């Protein structure tokens, strides 16, 4: 209890010092705007926003100020990714891929303004939940992240792929899993993570670094959207929009349990080293679909589905900072870029870090979430007008932005061919009602699954029991098994009968 009290007192002091300094607002508002813009442009990621600002400020301004800029951009970019997800059905960052599932149907129903307002609120509360955990539950979350080893990570990655496959299928779950397996196969291309042997590279050095996530993401989501949009242009029709963006308070209150649940899930996933916002959104969405009363409406414009993914990806930020600040191990890719900013300034994140810096980080995150909320309600008003631009003008612009985004990851022109290739395949998969998201998740998590699975077996000399003998692994194994079993026809029938009897 004393610890909690002293943490709050320390936070209060840091927060007052922060808001009393006029420079704070200059850095915060500037970086927040940059972050939201990066997030909203398809393909430009939170990691890129933080990296660029690290280069820009680096050791040129004091760490206290560069932290404001970097954290502001991080929070802004994770939030900003929801704009194109909702308005265009193209996720701005991988973190908001799950947001598109319910956000876009809402926008199509003319509730785009409401959806943007809700995600703004959800991101705001999510960031606060993650930050609160960083302040208070550091110890408990650290225990989780310290005890997670290769077998758990392998099973977690597999769970993510299976889950998105099961959630995304319109007709047959097996189609989602097929897409997931294609993604998994794509993740195998490149230098093998354990022995550095080239696999499926056909002697081409570009293939050795494997398929980058951003071009695959852009190809899978943006290209089919653009082709479909251009094929079915109806001149002169505009979406009817209600202009209300400020969310109804009763709506928020009604969904408070869902928001709280998603916040906790997001924070926990963020605390796992190397697992970031993209996974958090999916897992939270999946859990939401399973436990929610309106679970069958998920994917058709459910407010709860929207809130599940958006709260979790922002809550992930606070969680990801826990292993970074306390152990010196970044919890997500943007957190890795943040680590560089610390180290350039002679501040080594880890057990030796000055506790005052953690308190300042918490204070900055709290201020960032308020800034994001206020700016978000304003920028959403501007962004929603995008829907009024005719598609024939707008979609080519999106294609250009997408191309820039894919190019920005550094693989050169080949990444653009990859984007187009994946895009055409994805378009035809869409026509055949194969969900495309599991493919992307397969590419994102496949590398991790491959590496962790094989390392586990390597360590255990090929004994499969390694996935069942550790308590954490056993729980995850059971979850995976349950997920697969729940889709087998006999099990499904048994459940159906049970449900009928209960009703």
């Amino acid at each position, binding site marked *: 209890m004393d610890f909690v009290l002293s943490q709050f007192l320390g936070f209060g002091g840091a927060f007052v010092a922060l808001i009393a300094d006029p420079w704070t607002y200059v850095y915060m508002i500037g970086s927040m705007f940059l972050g939201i813009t990066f997030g909203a442009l398809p393909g430009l990621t939170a990691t890129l926003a933080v990296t660029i600002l690290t*280069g820009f400020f680096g050791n040129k301004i004091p760490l206290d100020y560069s932290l404001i800029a970097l954290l502001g951009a991080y929070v802004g970019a994770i939030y900003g990714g929801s704009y194109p997800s909702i308005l265009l059905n193209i996720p701005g960052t991988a973190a908001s891929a799950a947001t598109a599932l319910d956000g876009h149907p809402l926008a199509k129903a003319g509730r785009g303004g409401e959806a943007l307002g809700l995600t703004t609120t959800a991101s705001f509360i999510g960031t606060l939940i993650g930050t609160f955990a960083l302040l208070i539950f550091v110890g408990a979350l650290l225990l989780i992240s310290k005890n997670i080893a290769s077998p758990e990570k392998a099973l977690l990655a597999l769970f993510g792929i299976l889950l998105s496959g099961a959630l995304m299928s319109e007709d047959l779950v097996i189609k989602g899993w097929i897409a997931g397996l294609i993604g998994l196969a794509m993740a195998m291309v490149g230098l093998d993570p354990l022995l550095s042997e080239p696999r499926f590279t056909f002697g081409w*050095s570009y293939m050795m670094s494997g398929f980058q996530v951003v071009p695959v993401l852009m190809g899978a989501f943006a290209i089919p959207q653009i082709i479909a949009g251009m094929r079915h242009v109806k001149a002169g029709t505009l979406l009817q929009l209600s202009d209300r963006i400020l969310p109804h308070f009763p709506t928020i209150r009604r969904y408070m349990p869902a928001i709280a649940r998603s916040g906790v899930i997001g924070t926990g996933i963020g605390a796992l080293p190397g697992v970031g916002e993209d996974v958090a959104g999916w897992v939270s969405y999946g859990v939401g679909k399973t436990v929610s009363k309106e679970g069958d409406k998920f994917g058709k414009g459910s407010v709860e589905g929207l809130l599940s993914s958006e709260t979790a990806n922002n809550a992930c930020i606070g969680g990801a900072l826990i292993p970074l600040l306390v152990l010196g191990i970044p919890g997500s890719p943007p957190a890795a870029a943040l680590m560089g900013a610390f*180290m*350039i300034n002679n501040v*080594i994140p*880890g057990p030796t870090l000055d506790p005052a810096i953690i308190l300042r980080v918490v204070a900055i995150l709290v201020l960032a979430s308020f800034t994001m909320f206020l700016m978000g309600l304003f920028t959403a008003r501007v962004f929603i007008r995008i829907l009024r631009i005719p598609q024939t003008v707008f979609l080519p612009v999106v294609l250009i932005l997408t191309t820039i985004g894919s190019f920005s990851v*550094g693989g050169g022109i080949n990444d653009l061919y990859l984007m187009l290739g994946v895009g055409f395949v994805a378009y035809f998969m869409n026509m055949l009602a194969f969900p495309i998201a599991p493919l992307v998740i397969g590419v994102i998590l496949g590398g991790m699954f491959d590496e962790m699975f094989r390392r586990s077996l390597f360590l255990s000399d090929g004994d499969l029991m390694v996935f069942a003998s550790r308590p954490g692994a056993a729980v995850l194994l059971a979850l995976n098994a349950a997920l697969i079993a729940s889709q087998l026809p006999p099990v499904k029938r048994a459940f159906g009968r049970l449900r009928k009897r209960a009703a």
Partner: protein
Amino acid sequence: MKVFLAAFAGAAALIVGAGSVATAQDYPFRDITNVVVWGAGGGTDIINRMIMAEMEEHLPVSINVINQTGGVAGSNGMVYVMNQPDDGYTLAGISESNVTAAVQGGWDQKFDYWYPFVVGGSPDLISVPANSPYGSLKELIDAAKANPGSIPAAASGAGSIHHLNLLALQKGAGAEFKFVPYQGSAAGQEAAMAGEVALVVTSLAEQAALITGGELKPIAMLTAESAEIAGVTVPSAFDTYDGLTTYLPLKQAIGFAVRDTAPDSVKEALTKAFDAAMAGEAVAEWAKANHYDIGGQSGDEAKALFARLESNFAYTLQELGVATIDPATLGIEKP
């Protein structure tokens, strides 16, 4: 973003330049771009951002640092710099691990393609989990000798500097561990903390925070000198096993490079700024806080250092069977 800025700066410089053709322009006239071939937040990235900021103080222009990652052993970034003119306005931020790019098929140049500058590196050491039963290097080696190939040892990927250090330890002490590769040092250290492996070989800079926090227990430095950290003296492994001097020390060399074909005036200007920055207080302070040893080599001295590293790495990779190109065909001599 920065690329665009640099492009704008370049365009502006061209326009200004056209106006005053008569005056010869001394290097550097416009902003320099340093392309770091490893990711943001890693050791090479941090060192480059630090040294570039210091060198800016001694140059009339700014230096922009960008990251161009991917490929094999940083080949994407190196190929990118190769495709720019060799006028000294594009540098490459590199480390010792880039010397394997050629034998792994990432590109087709021997490392003397570069004219390197070495900022420094951090010495490697062996650490065990905080609750490990092994208290000294001797106990660990004896256990490995009793059960060859059974004690799991973490180091970053096959052919990395830390893996080579582990191999050298095995040869020098006559023991055999079960090498478990990880993607990067942080992941290996994490595995040691979680108890997945019995020991980890990475650099002091990478382990410092975990050692100070009591998460890892350091047992031996893989250099001739001992080291002081968190109030404890970590003994040199050479004190216990003198056979190690044949294979060690094998140290990181992190810095940057300009193309060897760049004009001499460029090399001189860079060397002057580099030497001035390295002599400064800020670099010394940074190195001390981050547990790095200062290098400071440039020119022929740095070239010789990288040539030794290249030959050592290349033939070790060939022995391990992971080199796709025979080092001899590239003209790399045996160590």
